[in-house]
């Protein structure tokens, strides 16, 4: 008997799976919990950018973000064109 002639030993029933809830939310530390590693990283955060950002509304931030991402995508396209011209493939 060929392998493809065999019948599957059982049929997997199509049914909805129960919704899992397994995140242990009650165990979450508070958002301002002290972590020495995070504190070390915090020293390098440019707070002037955050302070300026907080002066704006979420809608103003989102419009600036769109403009910034437009520039980021343009830079990426330029990089891709440059690599294509140089004959090198895309980089990850």
């Amino acid at each position, binding site marked *: 008997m060929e392998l493809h002639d065999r019948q599957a030993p059982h049929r997997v029933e199509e049914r909805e799976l129960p919704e899992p809830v397994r995140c242990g*939310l009650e165990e979450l530390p508070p*958002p*301002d919990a002290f972590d020495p590693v995070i504190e070390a*990283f915090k020293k390098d955060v440019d707070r002037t950018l*955050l302070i300026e950002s907080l002066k704006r509304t979420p*809608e103003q931030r*989102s419009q600036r973000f769109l403009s910034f991402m437009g520039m980021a995508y343009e830079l990426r396209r330029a990089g891709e064109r440059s690599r294509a011209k140089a004959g090198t493939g895309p980089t990850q």
Partner: protein
Amino acid sequence: MTETRFDQILKLLNSGGIRCIVIGGVAAMGHGNTRATFDVDVVYSRDRENIRKLADLLGPHHAYLRGAPEGLPFTWDEKTIRMGLNFTLTTDLGDLDLLGEVVGAGNYDQLLPHSEEMVLFGVPCRVATLDRLIQMKRAAGRPKDMLVLAELQALAEERRNRGGGGGS
């Protein structure tokens, strides 16, 4: 690679009446973070009606598994959504992560009390609170999130300094 049209994705979800909460980089941006992000992450409700709407809404936009080889027998429909949970998708409008459940926030119903209304890109959205975003990043525990976590905590501190909170 498709460039993500953040405004169009949120408009689509809003106009389709999708029950979802924005998390991740876009939510952090809404709260004031200044980091770039290249996709939209949302926690969606897994009730039957919402799943049906998601299937109908994203099907015409060629939702497909991001990073998967072309030609897989993948069909974006109600059954696929019901049988799965978290989907990292590429669409005509860009990259969209549809998450049924996330570490540190749970599912839609669990995250809902920790979300707030916000207008982003001209679209009214539900967005996870800054405090919950911090807790989610911490719970994920990924080394790459350390700097983002530090930024979000610094942001929460600056908001408190200005008299605002981080949300529930």
